């Protein structure tokens, strides 16, 4: 390896050196170089970078060994639906694709907008083209009838880097499901969706990784006039898992629904980060994120709406994140951020975090429902709203949540969060509000010091 390459990342870790070596082994290409540089600026993102302070990939990706756990089972697999499979060995596509879908395996690396803002997305793009994968896999969706497609990202292997670029032609409809099942020490997937006028995207994401794995899923969505995206994510996390959605409303009257639910057990970390730019008039964003966390689990929510002064007039956007801390020792970090510079907008956000309602728990138990079952039932009901828009997949996702909840080991009574309940709320925010970050923790002694508000109104 040349010194120039080695110097790309400052004080590289063993894992980062391995990533540099993998990059160096690929066919040289100026676009690829730019992408890798975008990644190399930060290296594996770590807690000293503002956007990553709660999700430290540098610390989590220590060695790129085979992970101990096989990939999770796939609840979204559906008979008769074309499936693309991305593994550390490359990708496979079915021999026949549904009408309206065309795949183009390109030898050149395609540029990626905003690569610097999404270092792990840039890394996925820079490393694609290894083994039998094309440098860029493009997918074009046309026609009036909805196209259904399923994508699986899974191991086994050391690194699973994948990139797919979708182009939805005017009026086209894509119903895509993505299962990110882990099984690789480090997976990073970059999925790009460009929606031309009036195009519709339904995106269902299921994420489940192993306790020793790191997973990053980056989606870039660009919407033209009257385009609509409906996204539903169900995530169980990994040692560290980041599900990032960066969406731009770039022409008027585009509409986005971004829903997500997470369930974090002991040793699992889930980070939902989203960035929505209202770069055109009269666009709508609805975001609901719901999660439940056990002792030793961590949930992170970083949501940002950016509404520029002129372009963003008549924006209608709402952001809601509600977390349930099921046990002492559960951790939730939330940073809702609304940067609203336009004055004719409707924006609201709500952010709450608390324990299960003791009155509800008692009511269920008085009817004979055992504590653990009562807790599972209430938690499932709590996250259900976030899965409501998943259409055909709602049932499968709910079944996964149910199965997880029924397997949760019983918490010793003393560890169950009981009497406390606290919340923070700030809505509506007009015309400018940049919310300060909040950190919720359930370690009892510190409770009194929790900030009462998350927003600094100016």
């Amino acid at each position, binding site marked *: 390896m040349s010194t120039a390459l080695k110097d790309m990342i400052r004080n590289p870790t063993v894992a980062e050196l391995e990533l540099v070596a993998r990059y160096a082994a690929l066919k040289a290409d100026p676009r690829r170089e730019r992408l890798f540089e975008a990644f190399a600026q930060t290296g594996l993102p770590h807690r000293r970078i503002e956007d990553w302070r709660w999700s430290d990939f540098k610390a989590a990706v220590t060695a790129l060994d085979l992970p101990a756990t096989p990939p999770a089972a796939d609840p979204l697999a559906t008979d008769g639906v074309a499936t693309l499979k991305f593994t550390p060995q490359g990708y496979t596509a079915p021999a026949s694709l549904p009408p309206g879908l065309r795949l183009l395996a390109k030898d050149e690396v395609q540029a990626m907008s905003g690569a610097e803002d999404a270092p792990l997305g840039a890394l996925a793009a820079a490393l694609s083209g290894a083994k039998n994968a094309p440098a860029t896999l493009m997918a074009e969706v046309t026609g009036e009838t909805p196209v259904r497609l399923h994508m699986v990202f899974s191991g086994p292997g050391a690194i699973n880097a994948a990139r797919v670029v979708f182009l939805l032609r005017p009026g086209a409809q894509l119903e895509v499901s993505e299962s990110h099942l882990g099984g690789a020490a480090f997976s990073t997937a970059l999925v790009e969706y460009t929606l031309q006028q009036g195009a519709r995207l339904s995106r269902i994401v299921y994420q489940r990784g192993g306790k020793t794995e790191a997973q990053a899923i980056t989606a870039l969505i660009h919407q033209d006039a009257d385009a609509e995206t409906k996204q539903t994510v169900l995530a169980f996390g990994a040692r560290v898992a980041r599900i990032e959605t960066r969406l731009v409303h770039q022409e008027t009257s585009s509409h986005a629904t971004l829903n997500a639910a997470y369930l974090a057990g002991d040793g699992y970390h889930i980070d939902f980060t989203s960035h929505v730019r209202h770069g055109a008039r009269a666009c709508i964003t609805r975001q609901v994120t719901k999660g439940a966390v056990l002792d030793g689990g961590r949930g992170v929510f970083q949501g940002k709406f950016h509404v520029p002064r002129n372009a963003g007039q008549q924006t209608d956007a709402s952001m809601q994140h509600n977390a349930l801390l099921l046990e002492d020792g559960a951790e939730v970090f939330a940073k809702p951020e609304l940067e609203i510079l336009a004055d004719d907008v409707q924006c609201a956000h709500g952010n709450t975090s608390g324990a299960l309602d003791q009155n509800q728990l008692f009511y269920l138990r008085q009817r*004979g429902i055992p504590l653990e079952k*009562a807790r599972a039932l209430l938690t499932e009901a709590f996250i259900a709203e976030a899965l409501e828009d998943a259409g055909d997949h709602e049932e499968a996702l709910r079944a996964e949540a149910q199965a997880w909840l029924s397997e949760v080991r019983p918490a010793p009574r003393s560890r169950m969060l009981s009497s406390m309940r606290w919340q923070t709320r700030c809505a509506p925010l007009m015309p400018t509000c940049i919310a300060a970050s909040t950190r919720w923790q359930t370690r009892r002694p510190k409770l009194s010091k929790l900030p009462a508000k998350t927003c600094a109104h100016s």
Partner: protein
Amino acid sequence: MLKIQNLSATVGEGEAAKTIINGLSLEVPAGEVHAIMGPNGAGKSTLSYVLTGRDGYEVTGGNATLDGQDILAMEPEDRASAGLFLSFQYPVEIPGVPVMTFVRTAMNAQRKARGEPEISAPDYLKKSREVAKMLNLDADMLKRPVNVGFSGGEKKRLEIYQMLMLEPRFMVLDETDSGLDIDALRTVAEGVNALRAPERGMLVITHYQRLLDYIKPDKVHVLAKGRIIKTGGPELALRLEKEGYDGVLAEAV
């Protein structure tokens, strides 16, 4: 059947602990219905919570048994499976959980705890239809989340619906009459009476004689300051309705 001896209980923790039930004794034999009346804040609801095992109350003395079984040592769900049912003064809203799911889950959990087979879906539906009809409950209401958006009276009727579905052996009804209109009071009372049986017992907490016209009690107790200060027949309720509590309270001193 239900036997409470010299029961004392506090609410609150540590320094703030406050004695609400203070040496209360009461016995309801199988087959009987007893009423409890008493001024606001006397400890009636607290007694129902202590009996059913709600968190936040500490038993500091005495005991309570159901058919000889010490219920105070049991988890709330085990008391329920043993046949103890509370119709809440303030029924709780459970967003996201439809009535059907809730009641069927409860029913099967109780059956499982007692080593009985689960109820089949058709059998459940059949029974549910019968009970709903008896209580004049709209079938659509049973598809909605438990108590969410229900009117005060609807919530009380739903409590009785659950009671008729679960068929408990001992029932505590905490102000089930409050919030019910005149017709609903009658239908609810009919529902309650349908469960009267030689092997069952009932404790009916109420402020008004009116309910006792429909659900005829074998005995009436007056609860004040955490204990039973007077016990009589149905005529005691009539006297309280006329005179208020002052006379009875004065006699007790």
